[in-house]
C-alpha cells in the first residue's frame, strides 16, 4: 500500500488594522459608531486603570498584580461579541472585559489589594472572577459550555439564541495539561466555548520558543478537530472579527474555536518581576510601537467616529471616573466591615459547621484579649461601588 498524505485544515493569520493604522477595507468588520466608541472607552479605561494601579503599587497603595496593558484589544475585541446572558471566564489580564461587563473599578482595586470582596462578581454578571492558577479556568469554561448544551437540549434555554462562553489563557498556559483537557472536552462535547489565547510570547521569563516547538498555538485546533485561527492581538478589529465568527459558529451549534492572539507582554509579568534579567528590552520598545490603542484611535478619527476633541474629553472623563473609584476604594480598604478578620470563616460553606464556629469564636476571643471586639465592626459610610459599564 502506498503512503498517502492526510489532508489537514490550514491555519490562517488575520490582520485588519495594522500597526501603522492602515486598514484592509475588504476585511473591515461592520461595527456601528456607538459600538466602536464603546470598545475604545473600555480599552482606554483598562489602560488608564492599569497605569494608575502601577503607580499605586509603587507607592505601597496596591498589592502585587499582573499588568494588563497591551492586552486590551484581545479582551475587548472578543468580549464585545457576547451578551449579558453569555459567560465570561477570564484568566488575569482581561481588565477591559471585566470593566465592560460591569465589574466596578472598586472590585478590581479591592481584589489586588487583598480583599476577597473584589473577587465577588457583581449582581447580574455571568462572570467567573480572575483565575490565578494557570489554565485551570479553561475546564470550567468547557463545563459551563457543556451545561449550556444540556440545558438547550432539555429546552431550558428560553431565549431564541444559544448561549456561549468566552474564556482566556496565555501562551504559557497552553503547556498545562488542563489546557489540553479543556480543548478536548469542549471539542468532544461540542461545547459553545471560544478559547482566546493571549500569546504575549513570555511566561514570566520563558520565551515562547522554550514553551513549545510548534509554530502557532492556533494549529493545535486541528488536533482537536475544531476551527483555529491566529490574529494580530493588537488589532482590535481582527480580534473582533475572529471572535465574531467563532461566536456565530458556537450559537449555531458548531462548538468551540481556538483563537490565538499574537501580542507581546510590554510590561513585566507582575509588579514583582524584572524583565531586564531575561530579555532585550529593545525588543519591547518595538512592540510598544505596535500598541492597539493609538492605531484604534487613528482609525476612529479617520472614520469620523471621534475627533481629537472627543478623544481628549473621553480621557478626562475616564480620569475622573478612576479618581472617584480610587478614592472610594481607599475608603473601603479602611472600613472595619471589610477588614473584619472573622469574615474569613463566613463563606467556606453555606452554613458554618460547629468545629469552624469554634475556631471563629477562638479568633474573636483572641482579638478581645488585645482589646478589639470584631463582633460588631463599625459601619463606615462608603459608597456602594457602581458598575463600570456606562
Amino acid at each position, binding site marked *: 500500500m502506498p503512503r498517502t498524505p492526510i489532508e489537514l485544515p490550514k491555519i490562517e493569520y488575520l490582520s485588519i488594522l495594522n500597526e501603522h493604522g492602515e486598514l484592509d477595507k475588504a476585511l473591515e468588520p461592520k461595527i456601528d459608531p456607538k459600538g466602536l466608541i464603546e470598545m475604545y472607552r473600555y480599552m482606554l479605561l483598562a489602560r488608564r486603570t492599569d497605569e494608575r494601579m502601577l503607580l499605586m503599587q509603587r507607592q505601597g497603595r496596591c*498589592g*502585587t*498584580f499582573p499588568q494588563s496593558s497591551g492586552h486590551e484589544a484581545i479582551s475587548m475585541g472578543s468580549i464585545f461579541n457576547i451578551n449579558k446572558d453569555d459567560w465570561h471566564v477570564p484568566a488575569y489580564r482581561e481588565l477591559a472585559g471585566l470593566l465592560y461587563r460591569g465589574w466596578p473599578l472598586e472590585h478590581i482595586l479591592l*481584589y*489586588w*489589594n*487583598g*480583599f*476577597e470582596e473584589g*473577587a465577588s462578581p457583581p449582581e447580574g454578571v455571568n462572570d467567573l472572577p480572575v483565575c*490565578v*492558577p*494557570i489554565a485551570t479556568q479553561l475546564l470550567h469554561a468547557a463545563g459551563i459550555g457543556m451545561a449550556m448544551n444540556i440545558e438547550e437540549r432539555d429546552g431550558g434555554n428560553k431565549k431564541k439564541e444559544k448561549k456561549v462562553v468566552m474564556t482566556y489563557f496565555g501562551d*504559557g*498556559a497552553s*503547556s*498545562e*495539561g*488542563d489546557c489540553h483537557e479543556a480543548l478536548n472536552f469542549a471539542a468532544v462535547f461540542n461545547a459553545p466555548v471560544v478559547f482566546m489565547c493571549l500569546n504575549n510570547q513570555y*511566561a*514570566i*521569563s*520563558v520565551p515562547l520558543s*522554550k*514553551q*513549545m516547538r510548534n509554530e502557532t498555538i492556533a494549529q493545535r485546533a486541528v488536533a482537536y478537530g475544531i476551527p483555529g485561527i491566529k490574529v494580530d492581538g493588537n488589532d482590535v478589529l481582527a480580534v473582533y472579527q475572529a471572535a465574531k465568527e467563532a461566536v456565530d459558529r458556537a450559537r449555531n451549534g458548531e462548538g468551540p474555536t481556538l483563537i490565538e492572539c499574537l501580542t507581546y507582554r510590554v510590561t513585566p509579568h507582575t509588579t*514583582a*518581576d524584572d524583565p531586564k*534579567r*531575561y530579555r532585550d528590552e529593545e525588543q519591547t520598545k518595538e512592540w510598544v510601537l505596535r500598541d492597539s490603542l493609538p492605531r484604534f484611535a487613528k482609525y476612529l478619527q479617520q472614520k469620523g467616529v471621534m475627533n481629537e476633541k472627543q478623544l481628549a474629553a473621553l480621557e478626562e472623563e475616564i480620569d475622573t471616573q478612576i479618581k472617584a473609584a480610587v478614592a472610594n476604594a481607599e475608603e473601603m*480598604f479602611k472600613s472595619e466591615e*471589610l*477588614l*473584619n*478578620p472573622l*469574615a*474569613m*470563616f463566613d463563606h*467556606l460553606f453555606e452554613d458554618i459547621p460547629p*468545629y*469552624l464556629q469554634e*475556631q*471563629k469564636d477562638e*479568633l474573636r476571643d*483572641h*482579638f478581645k*484579649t*488585645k482589646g478589639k471586639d470584631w463582633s460588631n465592626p463599625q459601619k463606615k459610610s462608603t459608597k456602594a461601588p457602581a458598575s463600570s459599564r456606562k
Partner: protein
Amino acid sequence: MVEMNMAKAINLALLEAMTKDPKVIVMGEDVGPDEGVFRITEGLFAKFGGDRVIDTPLAESGIIGTAIGMAIYGMKPVCEIQFSGFDYYNYHQLESHAARFRNRTRGRLTVPMVMRAPYGGGIRALEHHSESREAIYAHTPGLKVVIPSGPRNARALLHSAIQDPDPVIYYEPKACYRLFREDVPETMETLPIGKAQVVKQGKDITLISYGASMRATLEAAETLEEDDGVKPEIIDLLSICPLDTDTIIESVKKTGRAVVIHEGPRTCGLAAEVIARINEKVLMYLEAPVVRVTGYDVPIPYFSKEQAFLPDSDKVLNAARATLSF
C-alpha cells in the same frame, strides 16, 4: 562561618550539590536566566548551563513527572515548583508514582528526587501564593517532608534531601527567605532526615513547631522566660515526615506540658499527629491537655487579613499560659 540569609543558604546548597555530583540537576519554571522568582537559583544557569538548569514549559505535572523518569534513569532532579499553591497539579505524579516506584517494584526502581517549593503566608502575596499544605505530603506514604526554619538548617537539610535515596519534599518558608541572617559553616554539612532539634533546653513546657512558625514560637518563648519566669523547651521538628517521636516524647516526659504550633490548617494538620503520638506514648506524663496553635480550617485569607490567620507570638503565648495554669 559565613553570615547569610535563607535564600542564599539554599542557593549555596544547590551550588555545592551540583558541583559535587554531576547527576544533580535543577528544573522548574523560570529557574534559568531569571534565576527563580525568589532568586534561589541565582548563578546556577550561568555556571552549569541549560542541560543542568532547565527552564521547563509551564506545567507542574510535567516537571514532576519527567523528573521521576530522570530519577529512575539515574539523575538526581531537584525540582522547583514556583509556589506551593501550584503543586496540586503535580500531586498526582508524586502520590501515584514518585512515592510508589520503590514499593511497586520491590526495591528495583527508585526515585531519588527533591521537590522544592516556597510555602506559607506573610508576604502579602496573591491568592494561591500563601498556603501551607505540608500535611498533604506527610499524609502520603512514600514521601519524606522536610521544612527548614533558618539559613543553616536550610542548607544542611537540602543536602540531606538531595543525597536521600527517596523522594523528598523540601518546603521553604518563604516569609523567612530574607528575614534574618545566620552563620553558616564554610564546609558542607547535612542534618539527618527524621530528626528534630531541641533548639532550647527547658523544663516547664515543650513548644513544638517548624518552618515559619518557629519565629512566633521563639518570640513567645522569650516572653515566657522574661515575664513569666518559665523555662520552655523548644523543638524544631525540621522533618515532619518521618516525625521524630523520640525527641518529642523525651521532652514531654520532662515538661508534662506541650503546645504545637504551625500555620497549616488545624484538621489533620501536623499538630494532630504530634499530639496523637504524645497520647500514645506519654499520656500519663501530661499535666495538661496539649494545645495546638494553628492556621484555621479556611483558605488563608487574602493579604489584608492574612496576619489574623497566622500563628503569632500572642497566640502562642496565650496557649502556653493556659497550658501552664491548667
